[in-house]
């Protein structure tokens, strides 16, 4: 086995990943040409067109990748905090000097080139987190260990929110996945899912009244979900069958009383539901005292929290979210059908994809994308073009290639011996995964419209550079592992 640095990067590099990368970039370029293709179209290399520009971006991205591979791998760990601080500084500066582009202040313009520092923030944050978590005295065990990580994530997150780039900011949620992988309790993720479910139910059914002036279906269903969670926890997880069944009996009894009472006296079911959940919390408090089981106290607190969350969901939705965000969510939840307004993108995107059929219409033959029915078809909605022109077969294959890339990255991360490298690898996987999920989910009408690009396919220099940097730093770190002669 060759030792130390003598081994060339050529042999140490994970070429499979590089080929997937090259394929995705090339495929993206073809589809950008396809999406912006007009009938009197110039060549794919016409630099006044997006495909031509993207070609330039791709070449520079390759150059960037080359430079990253040639740098010493220890630089990343060494300069991690410095890079992080520099990017934070850049983000702050951007807020003040950026010009307003469609309401967002996130673009730095250098002559003909504009750049979004928010894209760099992902890499910088991943590096900073890796650095912090690879400290020899750090392990992610309890809640307290999460706090510094949360701070590292929160600073760029907040700054990007201030730039009015909510979509890019949300990407930072992806680090939760990495935290989970690194030892954070799965409960956090479960709580997240629980909160989303409550929110969807509370808002989604908030406009359906049960009976006149007496509460909405949303609140009642949300509270029902809370009780259900309590029951599942007690019955299946803690196996305290008696207590769980007693809870059900109590809830059922009170519900019947409420319904019967309603015959003589109009009852507001919202309050009934809240009252029942409050009682259930008291019930669990008592049980936790009696049985000395701490988890029930936890359940009680969670339930109380869920209740307050539902109470404030309306407020959150209508006061904190911007009107266009409210509408995007309402459209997704089928509360509003606004095919010419907010629902237009998604509807047109579904039409474009749906019209592709099994084999697609063929490259450059898609009518919907060519005729500009889908807005942002070469950036955030590039997947439409794929769906329309390459059909079910092509788009499924593309998704599988993404999956292959993700699994590949996870594998690379897992074979690292250094914590820094591993944490960084999981971060890269999480970020790519988040982008893929949100972007394709949005195009397919499964996730609210959040404007974040599809890695390597969407048009744009900032995003292509940022994804390239993310990936190639990992590849460099991975290559260094072999170069140092360390076995798997």
């Amino acid at each position, binding site marked *: 086995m060759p030792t130390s640095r003598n081994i060339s990067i050529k042999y140490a590099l994970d070429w499979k990943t590089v080929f997937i990368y090259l394929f995705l970039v090339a495929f993206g370029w073809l589809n950008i040409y396809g999406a912006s293709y007009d009938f009197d179209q110039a060549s794919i290399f016409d630099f006044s067109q997006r495909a031509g520009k993207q070609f330039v971006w791709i070449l520079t991205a390759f150059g960037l990748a080359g430079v990253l591979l040639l740098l010493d791998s220890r630089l990343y760990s060494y300069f991690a905090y410095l890079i992080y601080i520099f990017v934070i500084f850049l983000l702050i500066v951007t807020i003040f000097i950026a010009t307003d582009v469609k309401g967002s202040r996130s673009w730095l313009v250098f002559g003909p080139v504009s750049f979004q520092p928010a894209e760099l923030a992902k890499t910088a944050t991943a590096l900073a987190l890796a650095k912090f978590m690879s400290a020899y005295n750090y392990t992610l065990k309890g809640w307290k260990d999460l706090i510094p990580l949360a701070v590292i994530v929160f600073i760029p997150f907040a700054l990007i929110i201030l730039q009015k780039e909510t979509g890019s900011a949300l990407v930072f949620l992806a680090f939760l996945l990495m935290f989970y992988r690194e030892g954070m309790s799965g409960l956090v993720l479960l709580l997240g899912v629980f909160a989303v479910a409550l929110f969807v139910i509370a808002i989604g059914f908030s406009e359906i009244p049960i009976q006149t002036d007496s509460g909405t279906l949303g609140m009642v269903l949300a509270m029902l979900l809370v009780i259900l969670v309590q029951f599942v926890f007690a019955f299946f997880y803690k196996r305290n069958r008696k207590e769980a069944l007693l809870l059900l009996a109590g809830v059922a009894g009170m519900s019947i009383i409420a319904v019967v009472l309603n015959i003589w006296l109009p009852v507001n079911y919202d309050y009934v539901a809240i009252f029942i959940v409050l009682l259930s919390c008291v019930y669990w408090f008592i049980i936790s005292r009696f049985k000395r089981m701490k988890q029930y106290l936890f359940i009680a607190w969670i339930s109380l929290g869920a209740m307050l969350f539902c109470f404030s969901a309306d407020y959150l939705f209508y006061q904190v979210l911007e009107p266009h965000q409210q509408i995007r969510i309402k459209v997704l939840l089928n509360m509003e059908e606004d095919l010419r307004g907010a629902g237009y993108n998604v509807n047109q995107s579904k039409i*474009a994809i*749906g019209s*592709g059929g*099994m084999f697609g219409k063929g490259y450059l033959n898609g009518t919907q994308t*060519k005729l500009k*029915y889908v807005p942002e078809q070469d950036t955030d909605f590039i997947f439409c073009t794929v*769906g329309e022109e390459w059909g*079910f077969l092509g788009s499924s294959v593309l998704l599988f290639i993404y*999956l292959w890339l993700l699994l590949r990255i996870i594998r690379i991360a897992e074979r690292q011996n250094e914590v820094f490298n591993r944490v960084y690898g999981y971060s890269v996987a999480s970020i790519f995964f988040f982008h893929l999920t949100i972007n394709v989910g949005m195009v397919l009408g499964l996730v609210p419209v959040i404007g974040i690009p599809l890695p390597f396919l969407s048009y744009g220099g900032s995003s292509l550079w940022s994804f390239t940097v993310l990936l190639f730093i990992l590849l460099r770190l991975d290559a260094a592992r072999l170069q140092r002669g360390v076995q798997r």
Partner: protein
Amino acid sequence: MAVIMIVVVVIYILRLFSLQILEDKYKKGAASNAFLNKTIYPPRGLLYDRNDSLLVYNKPAYDIAFINREIRNLDTLSFCNDLKITKEYFIERMKEVKNRDKNPSYSSLTPQVFMTQLEIKDVAAVQQSMYKYSGFYIQTRTLREYRYAAGGHVLGSIGEITPRMLENDEEGYYDPGDYVGRDGFEFTYEKDLKGEKGVEVLLRDARGRIKGKYEEGRKDIAPKAGKNIKMTLDIKLQILGEQLLAGKVGSVVAIEPNTGEILAMVSNPTFDPSLLVGRERSKNYSLLVNDPTKPLMNRATQAQYSPGSSFKPFQALVALKQGAINEGTRFSCNGPGSSPIRCTHHHGSPVSLLNAIEQSCNPYFWHTFESTLVKGGYGKDNQNFRKNYDEWRINIMKFGFGARFEDSDIYQQSRGNIPSENYFDKVYKSKTGWRALTIRSLSIGQGEVLVTPLQLANATSVIANRGFFITPHLNKSDSMLLHKHDVGVDKRHFQVVDEGMWRVNEFGTARSYKVPGINWCGKTGTVQNNRGKDHAFYMGYAPRENPKIAIAVVVENAGFGSTFAAPIASLMVEQYLTGKVVRTDLLTKTMNVRTNANVKEY
């Protein structure tokens, strides 16, 4: 972590499967999004007369149409200015189009006609700035143009398709707003004249802008031009007929006997066919339809008259056929003192068939009719009489009377009437309630007998042909020689009728209107009616030796057939056989006769 990723990708692939494979609505959505199927209207077939003179051709017209869903940010003011309409008109018209009560086929997704049948000067301004008015389109159509202001009834007109016609359109060829032949020849030959519409598949972008042809036009369908048709009409004869009938109510039908080709079919009052074209159509139509002299009615085929004396030659032929009389049979005539029908002429007695035709002797034809019906006696319960009547009726109808020419292309014919036994049974309450004497007026073409001018001209051509007619028709490209109808009367019987009719023109009632250098045969009629003066009738054919034209003339409420109908027939014959009219005095005189002060010229 890997599990979560696999789960998400699988969910997305399932979603793709449902969008792309299971659901159909997105494909339809895509088609209605991106394709604009623009109809290309074919040129309608041209119409020529028998001498290849162009009668009807096309001129372009423009419709302004819109698809409501595609209208975006319309600058109404500039649009109205370009179209030279007021904003109020625009709003009013939009409301009208969108009103489903008035426009049941309205849809915001399909092209709706906003303004129709505009001329190029009206649309020029809009056409230049059409790109500004997304959702609006200019549709090119063709309208009819007429070279002669004649033949309106025969040629017919085209107009927007009616809801009823759309319902009956089983092939689904027509769309609302299409132009179709609405009456006359245009209606009869709609299938040949219309051609086939073409389609241009255009791509339309999200803003409704046309981005060019789909697949370089490979999916386009070229329109097929309609078939040009040569008609049997002689336009010069037609025009002369219309001039001669000026100021009168009546009609002239001229047929080429040995082919059944209609040479002229005139009905007056008439109208310039170009009045029923384009935007003025509905206005002019209501003007015409409300005129009490009924200019829209084609009297040549629709008006029914008792034929009077012009019926006598046919009576004679049927009687000869049924053996009730022969060429030598004579009956006595007491002139005006005759009974039961008086004679209006003075001549010797007993009178022969030849003289009876020449002199139009009413008593002779009464005796003839009686002999026909009571040949062999009345029989028990009038059975023999009824049998004879039935035979007579069948034989008379063989001349084309009492029924439409079902195998003809002539539009809107009336049936005329040769009454049946049942009819008389009903009128006279029983099968024995009527006898020859009861229905005596039939003998001289009065009473219940009704014929149309077309039927009379056709029956005249039977005499000219010595025993048959070819179904009268208007399309010269269609030979109708197989549609030969033999009347079953022996050729020799025609001699005496021919001779008699020749004598009418030579010595009798029509002797004043000899056609120079031409021997011809005819018969006048002066028909009593309940609407004022007698109708003037004339029927005849020429030349006697080798008939080229058979003609029937009716002038309503004019007086003597010899005075009002015969000169018209004479001049028509002269025009047709010699190609010109030399009797200009007669021409001027006849044209200037006014028999009905209400007749207007359109």
